[in-house]
């Protein structure tokens, strides 16, 4: 089973990385980029074949390791 995890910064949390990218896009001549936020996507190949169990397990991984739930949100998608 393949799972995809999206990890994004919570609203209001400063994203220095996004700000730097936005600035760089401006210097490269891209106009009208009003905001940039950067997150992560983590693709997991799981031995688990049960969809619900795979999803639960991916969520547990997010809580325990993949996401920093204090400043990040995560979302799990089973593909």
């Amino acid at each position: 089973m393949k799972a995809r995890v999206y990890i994004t910064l919570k609203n209001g949390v400063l994203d220095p990385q996004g700000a730097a990218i936005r600035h760089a896009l401006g210097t490269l001549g891209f106009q009208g980029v009003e905001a940039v936020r950067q997150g992560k996507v983590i693709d997991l190949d799981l031995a688990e074949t049960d969809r619900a169990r795979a999803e639960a397990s991916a969520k547990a991984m997010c809580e325990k390791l993949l996401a920093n739930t204090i400043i990040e949100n995560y979302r799990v998608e089973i593909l």
Partner: protein
Amino acid sequence: MTREPDVNQELAAGHGLKPDEYQRILDLLGRTPTFTELGIFSAMWNEHCSYKSSKRWLRTLPTSGPQVIQGPGENAGVVDIGDGQAVIFKMESHNHPSYIEPYQGAATGVGGILRDVFTMGARPIAAMNALSFGDPSHPKTRSLVAGVVAGIGGYGNCFGVPTVGGEVRFHPAYNGNCLVNAFAAGLADTDSIFYSAASGVGTPVVYLGAKTGRDGVGGATMASAEFSDDAEKKRPTVQVGDPFTEKRLLEACLELMASGAVISIQDMGAAGLTCSAVEMGDKGNLGVELDLDRVPCREDGMTAYEMMLSESQERMLMVLKPAKEAEARAIFDKWDLDFAVVGHTIAEDRFLIKHGGETKADLPLKALSGTAPEYDRPWTETPPPPPLGPIPLTDPGEALTRLMGSPNFCSRAWVWRQYDHMVMADTVVRPGSDAAVVRVHGTRKALAFTSDVTPRYCKANPFEGGKQAVAEAYRNLSATGSRPLATTDNLNFGNPERPAIMGQFVRCVQGIGAACAALDMPIVSGNVSLYNETNGEAILPTPTIGAVGLMTSLDQIIPMAPGAGEVLVLLGVTRGHLGQSAYLWELRARAEGDAPPVDLDAERKAGELVRALKAQGLITAAHDLSDGGLAVAAAEMALAAGTGVTIEAHPALSPAEWFFGEDQARYLVACRPAATDAVLAAAGNAGVPARRVGATGGDTVALGASALPLVTLHEIHGTGFARMMGER
């Protein structure tokens, strides 16, 4: 604009203001404060900004001396190092934020202390971090260690300051409250140091750096409140550090200062805009008017309250020479940083905040800090610790093996390898020695840095423990060959409203004061962190001492590593003090007996002797003795040198007392055999007891009859940290 909540005693309490404190506000204003005003008071009057519980005692510390250019009260202390140069340093805690979000909490702690230093016009040249964590087996400890260390590295490495020293300790008393104390030192010319006092009426107040968001709104209040298990709920206030912006801010500020445009400058720390503006006005005897519509904001719809309390990082407030505004703006444009004139100084004693065409706050500025509450909190003497019970008999070699592999004594290389400790290419003695040594760029002079405290001693006997923290710093600086110059402190304690805790605080401060006076290392800056408790369980009293020493030449450096075939001489008196020793605590989990007494006169004589022996070319290496005693010191020298050592047994003292006693004011020095008599004679002349205790060479560490292979020790010591982290 959303309607602001009504201000009443309950809301004030929610801001951490006690009923009598709220009453004080009502009396001062003769009216009910606005919501924004309440926020301002809560920020100015909380423990973190006002030092209301500690001030009375801090005033007793020795803070002056011929070397001191600026003592406590500015962003950092300034100390003369000759040749028109000064070292500028301070230490500050970020304990609670690091417990909540270790990476960002620690990172922003580093960011804050670096800003304190470069606000004064200094380029940061060294950083240290003193860390206290809970029991290694506590479920949170490993992730806190990993996060805090990564955060300190993440910020300091990117910023480009070498992180050259610190401490890491583990004790169950920190299970619910880790300590992250960050130190930074910078270098400046004595004629170009910048202060926070504003001057001139109508001069522009300029906002520089990153934009303001809702970060940490309420954070200053949080830093002064005890933790409970629902601390997790306070999480949304976490601030994120941006070392890249900080690095640009550093360069832009130094450029701006060099241009002559800056009248005064203040970084924005806790309750950023509020505290910095008040500080500048207060020190300059001026009022300040701010127009919040001009503040660069990162988020939409920010209220005056939020802007005044935001703890967004990497921001500065400056008062500029009006004629230089354009020049200043150009410098900030060059570094792509925000620059906005957000207000001006005024003649009246007012702190006037406007936003959206409304007056949001109109307060007497001087009274904001001047009438802040100050408490003489009740305190009690710390009762004597349980008496020292029978001393267990353990083979010295086995005891040493267990100590050297333990989390508290194993090599900290796991930590400092994650810190760039060589950037700026002036790190002459790297972490892992008694004190780190950083060359003063472009000269043959150098500065030594150390950070010390033994909280177990402070708990058992706060006065001696306070003295000991300073004495150990003095010893570490002396063992590297430097002359101790001055001190900063970071006083971490529990809830001062409890007389027993306040008693620890008072006595530690008195001990620190006595030692700083006797050893001529005045306190030039510092920080107090109280309420380090969870569910009523306080941390060990932890007054971290950061100290700086000076060498006028790199030739004065004393290595820690001896050569092979040398003689080891122990300086100082050994009585075999095992009370509160690592031997008892690490091996038996027993915290018994009194802390070792500190003879400050003996400390001074021994330190001066070590420097004199080096100057006379009599010694090849030196190492101070601290917890773990002679055995640990000898083992550390052996590991540093990669050569074995033999320490002979003592005719009168038991092996535990002799090898593991923690008597103070002692050093282990190495010399060539032919120099032994001269070393002993010099010690005799200096009034320092000295005795030949062993020799270097071979490939074992031998303690009397008990020997263990150096390779074993090396392996155990070298991998201990990774083992504790579960990586091996």
